[in-house]
Structures are given as structure tokens and as C-alpha cells.
């Protein structure tokens, strides 16, 4: 709580917040697909009962989706449905969603996981094929439309997958798995070109 309040006053980009992103700037380009590590973002893991959703949605400025495998996005902030009472909120605009939740009195649990996750963008015509190299989900446009989000697996690791455009995905994985995931996707992008 105190930490959240302190971060509210100091901008996230202040030099006091020392951040060492894993794999920063790494990217690989294959035929028809590009895999690149995205810049750091603010993230929270949010768990809340149905009754708290209205208050939390208002505080976060984005309506928390209630339908499985969906996401909602507004002003650089995306809320991904992970489970019946669990969401992943990603903020790419530099504002801290943890601080926004701190003022909500409705029952909820918000945990800052900004540094736990690494985001990797997979873009291009072969993006779905690249991810399907290790992910068993149906990534056809009907099965996984733009905006669809799901926790799933890639090879041996757990990832959170979000389709941001018809041929663009955001892969969120744990920091310690990021080297494996990036390498796996790079290999997958070579296969996707075949």
C-alpha cells in the first residue's frame, strides 16, 4: 500500500526505479514473421469477485471483461480475462495500475508483476504458425479473433497470449523463461516460413 502510494507521486520512469529488462531490444526477423522483445510495461495480477468489478473498472479506466478468452483495451491499458475472477492488466502508457487500484475499497487483490513478465511481439503473416510451433490452441481467426486472450502453454512454459491484430500477437511470459520463449519463437519463425 505504502509502495503504491509512493509510486503514485514519482513517475514510473524516474531514475530511482532501477529496471533491468531481460532480453531488451532483442529481435529476429524471418520470412513473413518478426519476433521482438517489447519495451517494459506496468502490469498487475488482479483477482476480485463479481461485486467489485464495477468499482475496479472505474478506477482502472478500462472495463474488466467477464467473458472467457476476451480482453478489453482503452488508452494504452489492456485487461485480459485469465479466469472467472482473475485478470492481467497491462499498462503501456507508463501509468501504474497498482496505484489506481490502491484507492478502491471494494474487495480485491492487486499484485504488481511488472518486472515478472516479459512481452514478446510476434508479427507478420506467419505469426500464428510461429506460435503454433509450441502452442496447441486453435489460432485461426475464428477460434482466436483479434482481442482474444488466454493463458496457455508454449513448449514447456506457460504464456499469456493476446491477439492484437489479425497477424500480430503479444506473448507474455515469466522473466526467467524469456530466453527459452524467445529462442523457441525464433526457431518457430524459421519453421513458419517453410
Amino acid at each position: 500500500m505504502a509502495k503504491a502510494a509512493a509510486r503514485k507521486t514519482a513517475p514510473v520512469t524516474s531514475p530511482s526505479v532501477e529496471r533491468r529488462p531481460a532480453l531488451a531490444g532483442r529481435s529476429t526477423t524471418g520470412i513473413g514473421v518478426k519476433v521482438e522483445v517489447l519495451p517494459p510495461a506496468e502490469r498487475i495480477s488482479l483477482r476480485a469477485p463479481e461485486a467489485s468489478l464495477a468499482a475496479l473498472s472505474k478506477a482502472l479506466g478500462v472495463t474488466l471483461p467477464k467473458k472467457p478468452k476476451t480482453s478489453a483495451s482503452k488508452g494504452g491499458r489492456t485487461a485480459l480475462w485469465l479466469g472467472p475472477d482473475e485478470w492481467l492488466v497491462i499498462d503501456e502508457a507508463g501509468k501504474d495500475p497498482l496505484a489506481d487500484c490502491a484507492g478502491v475499497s471494494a474487495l480485491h487483490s492487486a499484485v504488481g508483476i511488472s518486472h515478472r513478465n516479459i512481452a514478446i511481439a510476434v508479427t507478420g503473416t506467419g505469426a500464428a504458425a510461429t506460435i503454433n510451433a509450441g502452442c496447441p490452441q486453435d489460432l485461426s481467426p475464428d477460434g482466436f479473433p483479434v482481442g482474444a486472450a488466454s493463458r496457455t502453454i508454449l513448449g514447456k512454459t506457460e504464456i499469456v497470449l493476446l491477439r492484437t491484430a489479425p497477424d500480430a500477437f503479444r506473448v507474455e511470459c515469466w522473466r526467467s523463461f524469456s530466453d527459452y520463449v524467445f529462442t523457441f519463437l525464433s526457431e518457430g519463425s524459421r519453421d513458419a516460413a517453410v
Partner: protein
Amino acid sequence: MLLIRCPYCEEERPELEFRNAGEAHIARSANMAGESDDDFEKFFFIRSNPKGIIYERWRHMHGCARFFNAVRDTVTDKFVMTYKAGEPKPSKLPKNSNEVVAK
């Protein structure tokens, strides 16, 4: 690969996202300390292990992370139906599973 319907995600997902969590509908005694050794053994170790229809707990580990119950045939490995945790054991299985039940 098997497709298993998660009652929380409301769709079929690949089996790699799931973990089996043992037999379902095993009631834990409210007075565990008062249980006799024999009763505790039955609760703790003895499972039905049927040939045919089994009621199991499954977890959508790499998805919504929820536990749910599934009815599965141990002979064909076919999932007859799945339902949310806490819901009563279905008294009647869906019609299209009659063939499986008959075995």
C-alpha cells in the same frame, strides 16, 4: 491430442493445458480426528478405480487454473461430460454417452 471442455472457459481446449487431480466426490469428514483408522484409510487411500465410467477432478492448470469435475470412460479414454466444481454428481449422463455406459 484430446480436447477437454473446460466448464469455466466454456470451450474445448487441448489436453496439454490440463492436469488430472484424482477421483471426484470424495467427502472429507468434518470430524477427521474422530475417524477410525479403517475409515481414514478408506477416505485417504482407497479409490474405486473402475473399468468404465469414472468421476474425476481435473484442473485447467495452464488456462483459467480452475478445478472442475469430469466424467471419463477409462476404457475408451473418452470424456463424457465436464461440470463445475461444487456441482452435484450428475444423476443422468448425456444421451450420446449411452453406448459408452452400456459397456
